[in-house]
């Protein structure tokens, strides 16, 4: 007998658990579903509310599909259907029976359009349905979307859900959300508790905006003090975050400049060629990344797509390096010692390269996707958002610089290169084929520019004009840092990046750039050889 009672009790529990999501009559559900296909976003919101209110478990997938823009009306019979992209067509599912309805062309369907406001409202409705979801991550998201609208109903839903919540993380999230909603409570004790609860949480500007009015003019002195205290703490925190963020942004801009300039530090800095086609080497590298990406998309499974960037790096080095060697052998070697003609010739080459790329790939921008591991951001501290692609580029720029420095210092080619640039005739006398060393040096500089192009394709445009955007900055960095010095390039790029980013919030992007240019002009007047001037005979030549 006790066993039977237990069984009965368990059954009762199961029914109770399933109660909020009991299935309603198909006709009622279908009618509520039809309601979604109305004109006007306010009407659609009301219809979505009504659908959720049926309490039917089938409503949730429909609402999710609607929010994602996957809910359609079939033109033939006006029936709402769920559609998933399947190649050129859409694979349809019946939301009532869950049956597979085959595929249809998108012109046979009318999409139930959603906009930002409706999407937000849907997120809140879905949130209410998902607040009892077994997955804590879902519940967490649900709390966040419910908390966005601060209506009494939303507070009620949260309070009810808090009763059953077991996960401590989700609990605190709910408590904070409730605290935020009760800041306007007429009861001073409730307000004080709310402020104190918020003080234990995330010190974000959003919280400051909510609490600031209380700190200004709350009727109760204790609430006012607590709020003022909280606002001060948030402001201190935000200041620290701001400074760190500024520094990071400076480093990140600096590393972009560094990448663009390392190649030039070799072709211009070491060889003394005023290479106006340097930007186009960067561009070639970016296009190589695009071609490699397309090849990966076409021939390799999706799983390894993220690796295309790794493959692009050596490919871009080879492509840009080969073009560089060809340029040196074909044109530039005849112009050594005539800087003006070199400048004009390389400028012409840069225009030709641009037009060649434009003819092959077309004028519009090409999309080079960030691999999944480079998208998004890392929130190091609340409010301190470091985007992954920027972090990756900082690391990559330093790695390239280290590789170049090591190659110049420790390889036989590096030794020959330094020998040729320091004293050409002596090096030739020692049996070094100076012509080949020149070609390979130019190739190395160009190849590194190509590698930079791969990285820069991750933060900016890939278009035939890509190089133009970087050529001036590259020269600026090399001249400022000191012609011929790799450390100069590092110091030059980083200081220009940081100075630029410190100036930008105060002076604006436009004026900031101008100020930096003026600063460089003045600096060059004082130290014509840049930050790190080379010493010795080569520097005097």
């Amino acid at each position, binding site marked *: 007998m006790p066993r039977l009672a237990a069984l009965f009790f368990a059954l009762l529990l199961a029914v109770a658990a399933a109660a909020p999501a009991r299935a309603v009559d198909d006709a009622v559900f279908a009618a509520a579903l039809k309601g979604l296909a109305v004109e006007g976003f306010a009407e659609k919101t009301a219809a979505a509310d009504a659908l959720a209110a049926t309490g039917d478990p089938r409503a949730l997938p429909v609402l999710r599909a609607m929010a994602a823009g996957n809910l359609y009306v079939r033109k033939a019979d006006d029936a709402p259907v769920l559609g998933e992209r399947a190649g050129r067509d859409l694979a349809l599912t019946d939301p009532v029976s869950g049956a597979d309805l085959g595929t249809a062309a998108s012109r046979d369907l009318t999409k139930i359009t959603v906009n930002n*406001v409706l999407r937000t409202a849907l997120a809140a409705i879905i949130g209410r349905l998902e607040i009892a979801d077994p997955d804590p991550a879902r519940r967490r998201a649900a709390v966040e979307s419910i908390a966005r609208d601060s209506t009494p109903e939303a507070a009620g839903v949260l309070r009810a859900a808090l009763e059953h919540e077991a996960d401590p993380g989700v609990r605190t999230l709910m408590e904070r959300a409730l605290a935020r909603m009760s800041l306007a409570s007429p009861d001073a004790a409730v307000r004080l508790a709310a402020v104190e609860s918020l003080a234990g949480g995330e010190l974000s*500007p959003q919280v400051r905006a909510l609490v600031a009015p209380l700190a200004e003019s709350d009727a109760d002195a204790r609430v006012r003090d607590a709020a003022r205290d909280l606002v001060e703490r948030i402001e201190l925190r935000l200041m620290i975050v701001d400074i760190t963020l500024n520094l990071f942004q400076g480093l990140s801009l600096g590393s972009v400049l560094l990448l663009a300039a390392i190649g030039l530090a070799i072709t211009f800095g070491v060889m003394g060629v005023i290479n106006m086609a340097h930007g186009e080497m960067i561009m070639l590298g970016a296009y190589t990344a695009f071609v490699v990406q397309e090849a990966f998309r076409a021939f390799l499974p999706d799983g390894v797509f993220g690796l295309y960037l790794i493959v692009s790096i050596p490919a871009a080095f080879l492509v840009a390096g080969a073009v560089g060697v060809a340029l040196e052998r074909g044109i530039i070697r005849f112009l050594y010692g005539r800087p003006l003609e070199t400048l004009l010739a390389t400028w012409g080459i840069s225009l030709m390269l641009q037009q060649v790329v434009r003819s092959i790939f077309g004028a519009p*921008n090409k999309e080079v996707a960030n691999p999944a591991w480079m998208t998004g951001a890392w929130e190091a501290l609340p409010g301190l958002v470091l985007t992954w692609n920027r972090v990756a580029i900082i690391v990559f720029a330093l790695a390239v610089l280290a590789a170049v420095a090591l190659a110049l210092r420790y390889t036989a080619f590096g030794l020959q290169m330094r020998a040729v640039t320091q004293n050409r005739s002596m090096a030739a006398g020692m049996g070094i084929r100076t012509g080949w060393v020149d070609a390979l040096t130019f190739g190395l500089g160009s190849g590194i520019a190509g590698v930079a192009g791969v990285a820069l394709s991750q933060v900016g445009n890939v278009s*035939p*004009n890509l190089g*133009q955007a970087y050529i001036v900055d590259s020269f600026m960095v090399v001249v400022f840092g000191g012609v011929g010095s790799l450390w100069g390039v590092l110091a030059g790029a980083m200081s220009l990046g940081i100075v630029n*980013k410190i100036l930008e919030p105060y002076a604006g992007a436009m004026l900031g750039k101008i100020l930096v240019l003026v600063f460089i002009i003045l600096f060059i007047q004082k130290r014509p050889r840049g930050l790190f001037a080379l010493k010795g005979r080569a520097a005097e030549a």
Partner: protein
Amino acid sequence: MSMKALGLRGLALGGAFAAALTAGIAQAAEPIKIGVLHSLSGTMAISETTLKDTILMMVDDLNKKGGLLGRKVEAVVVDPASNWPLFAEKARELLQKEKVAAVFGCWTSVSRKSVLPVFEELNGMLFYPVQYEGEESSRNVFYTGAAPNQQAIPAVEYLMSPDGGEVKRWVLAGTDYVYPRTTNKILEAFLISKGVPKDDIMVNYTPFGHSDWQTIVADIKRFASAGKKTAVVSTINGDANVPFYKELANQGIKATDIPVVAFSVGEEELAGIDTSNLVGHLAAWNYFMSVDTAENDAFIKQWHAFIKDTKRVTNDPMEAHYIGFKMWTQAVQQAGTTDVDAVRQAMYGQKVRSPSGYDIVMNTNHHLSKPVMIGEIQADGQFEIVSKTDAAIKADAWSPFIPESAKLTADWTFPWVCGNCTEPKFAK
């Protein structure tokens, strides 16, 4: 049958014969030349090359249908290479050397300003297909893109409405040149007239091709954290958009938090961006490729057949060229000549059924009446239309929100005959 009737018939016959004869002569006559003045190299090639192809497509189509006034039409394509002074030189070459009947060209306002004196001096006819800042009406230019009241103002009104999220705080971000500066001046005046306090408007300008958006996006985030619904109105132009949107996506700014409405970002610009993280950001135009009309299907089909690539997109300036070219051919047919003064008279009131599915009319201020559409970016790089006007809206050449220009009228017909007058030239 009386003699008179016979005579009449004879006359009619003779007339028909003569007409056939002149038609025969005309067939052998020189083709009608039109100029295409779009940059095919340099910064603007990214946008303008497509417009050159659009005109070539229209010419091709017209010639297949028998040409114009019994003559073939020939497009003379020149490349001003995104170089503003070169635009003026090439325009002179087209008008004086090639003697073209009309020119289709320019994208940036600065290129238009550069060719304007040439067209006015030589009495040419320019069709300008891009949305712009207004505050202009030249006798020698027909503006087939949107004026601010056909794009910027309706977009801001949408965001202010309940459907748009009742935005209270505004960031006006633009590239630093004439179009964004003038548009933002108009928008600021408009917002203030709607009771938005000055503190709730943030204006920011960046150089052409700006690529490092970290600080500005962080600033926007900070500005938006004041507890009021915030939106960004972007007049950022050209290449700078790709890094801007990449930065938005990476910093996790969703359209449901801070929507960005752009006036220079269309299907063509989105082709270079992965849009899966940008769903919900907006753009305002007079045409979207996603418009569901039979006219648009035909337009897209024609484009794909001409360019031999079904992946290519169509966009608003292309549609503007489509409308402009059709209007010009209709006006030439009506005038019976390609003479600029005659065609100009015939242009007024000219009506074309556009791919957007509306009857587009040319007004006497040289601007069009066009519908306004607001679209949200979708994951496939297309726009979903979330709001559109019921009827076409007439362009204001002069904005009523700028006090100096509110007084001005543009009307090139009697009694005004003026592009910027406070009173008619031929009163009484």
